[in-house]
């Protein structure tokens, strides 16, 4: 059995990549901010 009726839309792709990309970007941002603070 396969899911032949389920096509992927652009919205699916945006949601899926956002779901993993946003937390990763947040984590990198937090790391960089704390690293920059150390130089101040």
């Amino acid at each position, binding site marked *: 059995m396969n899911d*032949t009726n*389920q096509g992927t839309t652009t919205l699916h792709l945006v949601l899926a990549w956002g779901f993993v990309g946003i937390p990763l970007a947040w*984590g990198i941002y937090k790391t960089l901010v704390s*690293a920059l603070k150390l130089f101040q």
Partner: protein
Amino acid sequence: MSLFSFLDRQHTIAGPRFSRWMVPPAALCVHLCIGQAYAFSVFNLPMTKLIGITQSAPDDWKLTELGWIFSIAIFFLGASAAVFGRWVEEGGPRRAMFTAALCFGGGFLVAALGVSIHQLWIIYLGYGVLGGIGLGIGYISPVSTLIKWFPDRPGMATGMAIMGFGGGAFIASPLSVWLMARFSSPTHVGVAETFVVIGLIYLCFMMVGAAIVRIPAVGWLPAGYVPPAQPKKLITNRNVYVYEALKTPQFWLIWCVLCLNVTAGIGVLGQASAMSQEMFPGRITAVAASCLVGLMSLFNMGGRFFWASTSDLIGRKNTYFCFFALGTLLYAIVPTAGDMGSIPLFVLCFVIILSMYGGGFATIPAYLRDMFGTRYVGAIHGLLITSWSVAGILGPVLVNYIREYNISHGVPKADAYNITMYLMAGLLVVGFFCNLFIRPVDERHHMTKEAEALGAAE
């Protein structure tokens, strides 16, 4: 139809309108969570004050006891990847990701119980054993699926997932610190509650990955992609059965390649802070050293994607030649950078070394696919992960013990790492020759056409 039939391989086959670009986020859902393991140390210090709160009480756990949690988890990562590799491969990615989510998320919940009743063995059992099994199954679960979806760019595809493992700590570390701050009070450290919340978050996040992952239908190829009529010399179009791979010299040479590359990288990753301060006393402070470690972690993550993608262009063997040749040169330069007092040169050497350390992890699945085919690549990758476990012991032991030996024999602290750096360079030379000796797998190890046809029909 059983309750869990939606986890079966045949229920995971994608329809014709499914985009393969949905699969890397599914893999990242798992790898970003299990990459938390790199950040587990943020819990160590708070767990030494569970009773004393502001400072360690006599009955509080010691750091040495807590260090075993991570070691047990990494041991079970390697062991479960090796033991469950074939089960993961044959059952499909959804069942594996689902199981990994239950083990990893459940491991946190069991560990939370251990913290709340102050029983260390429950934490060993929870995060160490159960969580470690989740780490191992989760690590290998998306590998062969990604390779099948991206036959034109297998390095880039697996590099993306394994980059997630390197990047997981960037999320876990600030999230854990923030949660502990929220749950702490003058009478309470807040570790148990953080374990519960973080375990539930990871459980849900990994379940999303399990829900959206798909495998391609038999014979599916990306639009416009035509497999080469004549396979390249080092890229097979045949398959090798998982346990047959163990009988080939190629498996053990690649095992050594990964082990030596990781040994060199992991040794300096663990000691970078202390090493930089001792090589540049008074110039690199503890604060600046922690900056350096953060920078190295970013290169470790970025290198996974960069080098694995590059390997699609220049080939796997040439990529490892870069790691070993450039790595040897850089390790040999580090003592000179120390003698010259050149911090920029020292930092440059270390960030490139760490990018190649990450790149080594990320390029290995595609190397295995080139040698042994796609059918059992996930399971073979699982067996190969044992080299990581060995390197995880070898690297830090070499760096620490040689440093101690040098200092006890009167070598100044600033020079105590020189021999270690030359030794690491030597290990990479050995790795260079292991890589050099890798040839295509002999035909007698290939699966028969009948067995391959049977496997494809399953």
